[in-house]
């Protein structure tokens, strides 16, 4: 079905069957097909309005990404609307994506005519009134102010700090996240007004698919999903393979626990991804593309579907896009919660309606993938980099980053760190810069212990290696990997053996079961780790045997690494190997002394009852799941250490603070 496409000017004769190749320029700069200064002025005025360069009335932006909502942005939004209505003041209220500084969520921006755009956070419902008052011309709440977006002197004479000077933003280089949190993700016009879809127009108009592959290869863009394969090279293989049908798949199955970059990009700037996908599909001559996205991201799915609909409506997807003869349909496929589906062959199996199990490669999907046709699987961040590469040229992209890894990388910074959030830094930035300068170091007055990078396939990096630069090669050398970009900071209270066990439990649960090293090997690894972090299951083993199990742990881990079928198994032992390498003393304390030095292992915790404080209320006795507390009413109780499982139920139950954790 072909419906009419909105005409831009009266004399415009273009329709969906005969689209205009210059539509994007026409929308922002006026018609190229004829001299018409009035239309050109109107178009640039429209674009300026869309960019909100000189607003007539104040605009309030509320960050309602998933992280904002979790922090209570929904309530803030309502409170602001209520406050505005009460003051009978009219201001535009817009929902935007995430600007990245999660620890200050809910973040609210206020755009005042003549004073620029100011960011505030955290703005709870209680502070909403003050923001609304500031919009109506009242005092600006400086205690909540994060900074002003526009840099330098804006001629207003006030001394509000710039957002770019905020320590969180100072060392960032934003390409992928450029628009996130700034534009309204539900309106394609705003993306176009900020230069969106120009790269696609340019690629379709002046580049052949082969030239485009070449351009991207020259830019040095490598797969951001973790593997780091040269994107342009992968495309060339798919382009060179002859077939009736070819497919592009966007891998948005962000399964790494601790990573949320893809979610934020899709929620905050979905059109960047769509434009990137259209460019990639054109480069490999695919006319059908899929986005395989996690079902756990309902908001991202909703925004993406809406964005695809708008792009179709504008003629930027669908039939004969911008009169280039290139057709593209994008379908959204929801994942069903299997970590292994992040592996490309498993992902393809899942789209085909099968169990998501990897298959041996070669043949690589670029040769034979979805429905046995050539298929390119690219990660969200990889695709989101493409518009900038095509528009600004490969040299500009190469200028950022290192010789071996070009461009930037988005990291999700979380764990025990002062400022959590989403950061985009140039490749080659040192880890310590990310953790201490951008993240503000460890929260509270605790000591930094390690940073975990790359999710279940990555490793833990201790303080002595924090001067490592983030690029594909350097991370590999210290036993970690780029992974998809989760950075979880751990402090002295985190037990590294427990972290290794946590990841192994995850991998063991998510192992698809096809190859034996991964299925059985990870089970053995997990068992050994469990014997270290639990109290009784290894009873009867003397310290020597337990130490031997640690030696075997390493041997087994290396075997799994060498013999597994897919990336999941091959990288599964990384958390163990890296913690064993850098935190051997913690393993030894667990093995020899059955003691957890940092107190992170629940089962190795011991509790005792303070006789001074216990009143004999029996609350703990009734809560203890192991029957480890003895005592009668009004008499002091005591804990039988050999029965205690360390769950802490008594600790939660006691209202007198009589249970002491040792």
């Amino acid at each position: 079905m072909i419906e009419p496409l909105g005409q831009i000017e009266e004399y415009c004769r273009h329709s969906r069957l005969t689209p205009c190749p210059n539509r994007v320029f026409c929308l922002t700069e006026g018609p190229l097909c004829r001299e018409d200064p009035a239309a050109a002025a109107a178009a640039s005025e429209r674009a300026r309005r869309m960019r909100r360069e000189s607003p007539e009335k104040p605009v309030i932006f509320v960050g309602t990404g998933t992280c904002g909502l979790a922090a209570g942005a929904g309530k803030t939004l309502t409170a602001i609307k209520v406050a505005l209505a009460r003051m009978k003041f009219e201001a535009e209220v817009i929902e935007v994506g995430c600007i990245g500084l999660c620890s200050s969520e809910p973040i609210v921006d206020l755009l005042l005519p003549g004073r620029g755009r100011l960011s505030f956070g955290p703005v709870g419902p209680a502070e909403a009134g003050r923001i609304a008052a500031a919009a109506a011309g009242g005092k600006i709440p400086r205690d909540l102010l994060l900074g002003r977006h526009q840099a330098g002197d804006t001629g207003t004479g006030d001394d509000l700090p710039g957002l770019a000077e905020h320590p969180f933003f100072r060392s960032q280089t934003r390409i992928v996240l450029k628009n996130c949190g700034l534009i309204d993700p539900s309106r394609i016009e705003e993306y176009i007004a900020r230069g969106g879809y120009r790269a696609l127009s340019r690629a379709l108009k002046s580049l052949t698919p082969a030239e485009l592959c070449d351009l991207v290869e020259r830019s040095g863009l490598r797969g951001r999903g973790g593997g780091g394969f040269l994107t342009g090279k992968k495309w060339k293989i798919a382009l060179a393979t002859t077939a009736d049908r070819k497919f592009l798949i966007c891998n948005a199955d962000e399964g790494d626990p601790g990573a949320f970059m893809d979610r934020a990009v899709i929620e905050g700037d979905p059109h960047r991804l769509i434009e990137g996908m259209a460019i990639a599909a054109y480069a490999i001559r695919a006319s059908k593309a899929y986005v395989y996205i996690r079902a756990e991201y309902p908001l991202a799915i909703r925004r993406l579907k809406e964005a695809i609909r708008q792009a179709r409506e504008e003629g930027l997807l669908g039939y004969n896009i911008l009169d280039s003869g290139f057709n593209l349909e994008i379908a959204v496929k929801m994942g069903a919660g299997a970590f292994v589906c992040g592996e490309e062959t498993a992902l393809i199996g899942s789209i085909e309606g099968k169990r998501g199990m990897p298959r041996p490669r070669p043949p690589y999907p670029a040769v034979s993938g979805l429905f046995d046709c050539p298929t390119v699987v690219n990660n969200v961040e990889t695709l989101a980099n493409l518009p900038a590469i095509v528009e600004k040229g490969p040299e500009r992209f190469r200028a950022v980053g290192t010789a071996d890894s070009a461009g930037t990388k988005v990291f999700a910074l979380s764990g025990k760190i002062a400022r959590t959030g989403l950061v985009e830094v140039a490749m080659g930035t040192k880890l310590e810069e990310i953790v201490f300068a951008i993240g503000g170091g460890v929260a509270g007055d605790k000591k930094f212990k390690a940073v975990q990078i790359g999710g279940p396939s990555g490793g833990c990096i201790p303080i002595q290696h924090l001067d490592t630069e983030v690029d594909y090669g350097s991370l590999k050398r210290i036993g970690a990997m780029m992974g998809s970009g989760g950075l979880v900071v751990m402090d002295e209270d985190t037990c590294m053996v427990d972290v290794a066990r946590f990841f192994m439990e995850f991998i063991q649960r998510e192992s698809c079961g096809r190859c034996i090293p991964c299925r059985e090997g990870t089970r053995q690894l997990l068992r050994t780790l469990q014997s270290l972090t639990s109290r009784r299951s290894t009873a009867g083993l003397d310290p020597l045997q337990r130490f031997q199990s640690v030696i075997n742990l390493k041997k087994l881990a290396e075997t799994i690494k060498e013999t597994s079928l897919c990336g999941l198994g091959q990288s599964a032992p990384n958390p163990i190997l890296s913690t064993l390498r850098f935190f051997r003393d913690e393993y030894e304390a667990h093995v020899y002394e059955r003691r957890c030095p940092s107190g992170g292992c629940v089962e190795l915790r011991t509790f005792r009852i303070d006789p001074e404080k216990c009143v004999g209320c029996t609350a703990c006795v009734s809560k203890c799941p192991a029957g480890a507390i003895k005592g009668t009413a009004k008499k002091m109780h005591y804990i039988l250490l050999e029965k205690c499982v360390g769950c802490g139920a008594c600790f939660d139950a006691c209202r007198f603070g009589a249970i002491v954790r040792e």
Partner: protein
Amino acid sequence: MRAESPPDLKEILARYPGAERDSLIPLLQEVQESEGYLSREAVTAVGSHLKLPAAKVYGVATFYNQFRFSPRGRYHIQVCRGTACHVKGSGPLLGRLERELKIEPGQTTRDGLFSLEIVACIGACGLAPVISVNGEYHAHLGGDDIPGLLENYRTRIEESDD
């Protein structure tokens, strides 16, 4: 209570005429969305619609974490067990929930009010530890917040039942 009743099985299947194997997972997702879980009847019906044996459908459905084979509670609690949440104490938080509700992950309380599920990562790592109750997020939780939170939902039910 609900403004419109969710589509039943027949309606869902009718939306996929002549569907093939690659529609299996979307179909199962839609059925689960409307019924809350995959009943035996639903699995057989989906199988015969796609001309697949029920065993194959089960084979796929049990592979993925998303699919449930028993009804879930009125309030479905998802506990994030991602790395950031783990480091910030989602383990003890889950333990507290298990003790308060007296169920394990994957189960539903006897009164049908609450069900508990572990999810790998909700993606709100900056606000860890996080749980989601029927899609409503609760951030920065500690064990002691749990009783109040559950009580809150219980009163909500009483209010809506009145």
